[in-house]
């Protein structure tokens, strides 16, 4: 091992690998939760009942335009403190991971909901009328007629947003996570702290991020263009 390549020596390599795994875990869990949340919120926004619709609209309006860094600071510093004052009990340290996941999911969920709504509005209203005439229930219309087509129409935007969610996992840098649970950027900062240089850890994780976003971008674009092809085929 050369002295110039310390990032690829232990323990730093192990930290980086751990960071990569945490990044993948955080982005997949929060992305999946955000997709489900986005679907649910979209469903609520399109109902005729006022209460749920208003709640869903408010949720989207609030979380679409909140920057993640101050939001994470608020949720991981101010909320636990408030909790301590009210209940007299401290948050356990691992709770920060769940708070992080919740914030990322809420942020991406609101954006997914906004994208999906555009998709739902793009599905021809006659489709719903036909489905109703054929005797489908409201739920069946939603899940078998409207949402699948809506998702296909906005597939490219959904793909972009999924990758954005993965990139947002770096915002964990401002969350006081335990060392073992740090994601890539956190581990890079830890290595920089030990070795007094950002150059190597930063370059290493930048390369990993490029591979991750280009790689998942390639897969998602393929999915999106197939979905779009099906939309075109359906319209023809």
């Amino acid at each position, binding site marked *: 091992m050369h002295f110039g390549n310390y990032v690829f020596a232990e323990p730093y390599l192990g930290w980086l690998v751990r960071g990569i795994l945490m990044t993948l875990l955080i982005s997949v869990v929060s992305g999946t939760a955000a997709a489900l949340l986005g679907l649910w919120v979209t469903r609520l926004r399109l109902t005729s009942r006022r209460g749920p619709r208003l709640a869903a609209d408010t949720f989207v*309006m*609030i979380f*679409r*335009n*909140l*920057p*993640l*860094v*101050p*939001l994470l*600071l*608020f949720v991981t*510093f*101010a909320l636990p*403190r*408030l909790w301590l004052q009210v209940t007299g009990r401290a948050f356990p340290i691992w709770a920060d991971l769940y708070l992080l996941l919740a914030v990322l999911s809420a942020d991406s969920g609101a954006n997914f909901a*906004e*994208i999906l709504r*555009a*998709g739902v509005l*793009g599905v021809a209203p006659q489709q719903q009328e036909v489905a109703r005439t054929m005797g489908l229930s409201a739920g069946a219309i939603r899940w078998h007629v409207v949402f699948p087509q809506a998702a296909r*129409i*906005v597939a*490219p*935007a959904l793909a*972009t*947003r999924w990758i*954005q969610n993965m*990139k*947002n*996992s*770096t*915002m964990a*840098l*401002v969350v006081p996570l335990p060392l073992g649970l740090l994601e890539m*950027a956190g581990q890079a900062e830890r290595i*920089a702290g030990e070795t007094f*240089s*950002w*150059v190597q850890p*930063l*370059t290493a*994780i*930048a390369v990993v*991020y*490029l591979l991750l*976003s*280009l790689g998942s*971008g390639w897969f998602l674009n393929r999915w999106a263009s197939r979905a779009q092809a099906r939309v075109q085929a359906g319209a023809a």
Partner: protein
Amino acid sequence: MSGWIPPIVRTLLAGYPVPPSMIDPSYPQLIQRIGGLELTLLITLAGLLSGFALGVILLACRRNPLTGPGRDPGEQLLGQAVRGAAIAVVEGVRGLPIILLVLLVFTLPYPITGLQLPNFVLAAAAFGLYAAVFVEESARSGLRSVDPQLPAAGRVLGLTGRQIFLRIELPLVFRTMRPDLINTAVTLFKDSSTLAVVAVPELTYTGRQMMLSDPAIYGAALLAVLILYWAPATAFSAVAVRAERRRTRAEGFAVRNTMIE
């Protein structure tokens, strides 16, 4: 005069006063004394302006005339290299999380070149790069919507390729780009909060300092920070939505299925 503004908010708007010993005489004092929301807005503006210029340059590199027909192989190769470099910059910046881009721009230049640049310049550079990618993408999709008969008419009139690009295509594209530019401004405004990680005294950093200096105002300070981001961002998003609607109506575009981030 502004006594009705609570002290917390006043500090968030203008930042903590900078001690004279921290001020670098070789660099504009005005920028160094600015902090809080003012600095956030200034960085957003600087990023937007430099990003606009860089975005247009990237677009020009990407569709440079050297790769066109009737050029000799040497020129073709150079043209391909320039185009490849522009694509690499766009894909590279787009593939990186913004925090990583900020960290790279703030930590790499010094160890590599020995050049120590002021924080404001680095921040403007990072967000200029970030914005350039949005601008390039928006301008490229705008170019596709330009009626091909207009450049053709220019060619008939004897304009050169550069004149067609600068005088016909770009002005038409700029008009269709307006909603995207507003959205880019909102994105820069929100994402400039990542500068707190590298201790630039903008809004988020000021809130964090406040939080660390006085635990009693944790919640209030951070809540005020969130509102100061949320309210302008929401207002400008609404403006962008209206501009988008006007564009869709005016140009008779099909509803675009790409959402703006």
